[in-house]
């Protein structure tokens, strides 16, 4: 089995002995997608032995703003269910309602779920990686009346997920841990690529999104679908680059501090306005006095999301360079496990 790595590039999964759980989760998704009849999606294992210069990594990017949400920016900030582009955020305001800080996350809830599967303490340690002073209670993490010590790993996993929307550490105290919107899931991402990886020659690639489990009105889905369908049409096989997941890439727009334009994406800049961490899975925007965005004050997280580019990397190569079992049409191979 491919040794899938921790998408946060932290040592947390390994230190908590959760890495193997995570690998099983990702493997399960890969196998499901690779077994989809006619899909160009294949296991990452298939790329072993393919010459490096024959493997192409194609970033598929989109803007984090939830295009299909017919709501005001303030309402989008307040309702995580409206944030459906594989990015969610929490906006913190001062007593006067002024925006202080916005934390963005692209982390899948199953990543946190595998920590929960190990133990409540592993999960709490994960939270302390983000908030060193954190002291989450069992009730915070799993809901009332749940005894994690007496539960199986599977029960802890699901109890954590079931309680996620009510978990204060994921909902404003102080910010968020991971994606909770039902469509922002690892399964949804794989399903999208799986469906769009089936070449539909009778439909132009740009129209496939409306025909499969893909939402054309979103920012994310059409980009991913179109890219994958195009690769399938070109006879390529593809997979997600390891570690699988969405990365926070770049904040666009004209940012000025006291009237002078700044490079908000410069990680070494002293202004400290934008910090991306956890291998691009989490970012913190700090509002400072004198900071403007396109000559306007920053009032909502949605305003920032309008210019926040995120993406996922797809690796692909020619069919004839991968083993026979990995090629399109061989999805029933017993090797795919």
């Amino acid at each position, binding site marked *: 089995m491919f040794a899938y790595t921790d998408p946060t590039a932290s040592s947390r999964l390994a230190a908590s002995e959760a890495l193997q759980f995570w690998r099983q989760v990702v493997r399960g998704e890969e196998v499901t997608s690779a077994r989809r009849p006619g899909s160009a999606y294949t296991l990452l294992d298939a790329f072993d032995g393919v010459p490096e210069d024959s493997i*192409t990594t194609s970033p598929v990017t989109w*803007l984090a703003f939830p295009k299909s949400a*017919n*709501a*005001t*920016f303030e309402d*989008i900030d307040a309702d995580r269910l409206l944030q459906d582009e594989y990015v969610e955020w929490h906006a913190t305001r001062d007593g006067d*309602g*002024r925006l202080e800080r916005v934390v963005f996350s692209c982390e899948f809830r199953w990543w946190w779920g595998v920590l929960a599967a190990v133990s409540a303490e592993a999960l709490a340690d994960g939270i302390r990686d983000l908030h060193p002073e954190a002291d989450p209670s069992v009730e915070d993490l799993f809901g009332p009346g749940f005894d994690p010590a007496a539960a199986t790993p599977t029960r802890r996993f699901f109890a954590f997920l079931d309680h996620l929307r009510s978990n204060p550490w994921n909902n404003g105290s102080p910010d968020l841990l991971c994606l909770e919107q039902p469509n922002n899931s690892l399964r949804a991402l794989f399903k999208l690529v799986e469906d769009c990886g089936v070449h539909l*020659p*009778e*439909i*132009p*690639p*740009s*129209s496939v999104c*409306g*025909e499969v489990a893909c939402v*054309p009105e979103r920012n994310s889905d*059409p*980009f991913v679908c*179109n*890219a994958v369908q*195009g690769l399938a049409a*070109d006879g390529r096989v593809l997979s997600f680059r390891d570690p699988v997941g969405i990365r926070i890439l770049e904040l*666009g*727009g*004209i940012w000025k501090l006291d009237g*002078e*334009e*700044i*490079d908000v994406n410069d990680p070494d800049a002293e202004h400290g306005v934008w910090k991306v961490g956890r291998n691009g899975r989490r970012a913190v925007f700090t509002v400072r006095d004198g900071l403007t965005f*396109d*000559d*306007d*004050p920053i*009032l*909502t997280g*949605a*305003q920032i999301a*309008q*210019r926040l580019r995120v993406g996922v990397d797809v690796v692909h190569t020619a069919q004839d360079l991968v083993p026979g079992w990995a090629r399109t049409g061989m999805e029933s191979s017993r090797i795919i496990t």
Partner: protein
Amino acid sequence: MPQRHVPSAALALTFLLLLAAPAGAQEDTPFLKQLHEGTAATSLTAAELAALSGDPFFDLVLEPGGRVDSLEEVERRLAPPGSGIKEELFVVHERIVSPRPGARRAVIAFKGRHPSGHMLTRNVMLSVFFDSERFAERSVEAWGWDNHRGRYNYYRLDRSGTPDRRLSWKFRGSSEGADLLQPEDRSGTCLACHVNGAPIMKELLIPWNNWHSFRFLAGYLSPSAPDERRWPIASHPRMGFLTGAEVLETDHLLDAIRHFNARRVNDVLEREDDRRAIRVDAEGFARVLEGRRTLKPLFVTTEVNLISADQLSGLDAFPPAGDTSPSSTPIRVPNSFFLNAGLIGGRERGQLQILTANEFSGAAVLDPALYRELVREHDLQLSGVRGDAHFAWFVPEASHIDNDLVSRLLREGVVSARFVAAALAVDLRQPIFSGARASLWERFVPETFRFRPLAPTDDPLERDLALVDLPGDALIPSVIAAIEETEPADGTPEALFLERLRSDDPLRALEADVDAYLAEIRSEKQADERSFAARLFQDLLERRRAMLRDPVLSTLDESRGGLLPLPPPLPTPAGVPTEGHRGREEGGER
């Protein structure tokens, strides 16, 4: 932060001397001035040269002099090896979906900070034609943004205007005062298309009809396409920068328009003597010095963008390669076809947030077979070839540059939500080319007025001074007084405008109008879908014709009949002829 390089007048003078250097000296590519197509190019004065310094294109490409006689050399100046500057190349053409070899336009943008200190992102752009074999290396158009003076400068490299047809660079004018020009003054200039002076991308929003984008990938330009599908030019190193139009929209044009409009608004406000702070009087009011100019975009269509349904027409006049089976996906007519959805239904601060304005597209869903029947029935053509655009329902809409300006005026308190809602209520169902709204601007908008600046955290939709608290020379009292003087008859646009300005809540009244309109659309469709579609289709054709009749905006059809699907004969613009603008095959930025 690196300091921006601002050359001295002495350096500019040196450049002039180089230009006049005797034969035998290094043969620089001359830099001249040519404001109108077809006229002789002349030398720039020292003052004119000095006025260009600070523009990164001038500073990096033209001012240093030398033999900058090709696109490649321009690229080398702007993105020197090792500089980390990222180049992006976007491709547009009315026939982009067809793999048949032909001309295409490339728009080239840059991202990053130049070693000189100049920020190139959004501040420089190039345009050049290419075909299946080569780029027109010596026919280049460019603009640069001068942040100090708040203006765009336009340039061109070609052989026109010199007696010996010598290759030369020309300064082609700036954006200063562009919005004030009459149609006849625009003819033969860059401002024939750049109406307000800013960069334009006609098909600004998804699905970017006519552009290479993720919604339509011009496979023949991809280096990895199979040999039989790939154009030879696909192997050119420059094609490695090929990027989708979605990036041009979000990473370049929207920002360019925003900061241009920010300067436009700032420039019309009364300032303190030191010309920095906006002057606020003892009552807390500031003053707009050019009221009519500032408010024109709210009432008059100064520019348009071109939108379409997200669905394919299935009837391309110039079809793509591969399967061209008709699509079975229902056609959703864009919201902006019905009303100014961008401003009325916009969700962010500075827009009216009437969210039902975004529901028209869901109500006006058409059977694709019926749509295709209507296309055939009306004998639509592009460049004399029967068919439609690649994406269905390709139509002019209210422009982003106009809406963005109004939005900024709202955010800064220059206009109130009351005023904007009252204006947009007039001829609501005609989002562009409204004679009724234009007449209100002509007759009633004052040249100067006072306003209470809005704090950055104030909500423009909430903070609204009561009419009784407004001074007589504020905008609304001025307009009300002007309308009242004419004693408007019931049912006239001015009567409606007056009623709404005086009403308790024009914003809610507009919302009610939108709700009623939406309900009517739904009923009409439910009653008789075929008649509904036919009626909308007639409106679609009329909207296209209106653009081609407009003495300014008709110029946007550079291909003269290849942009908007219409039955022959095509309408002609009223008034001033638009001669002198170079057609699509030769040049001209989109």
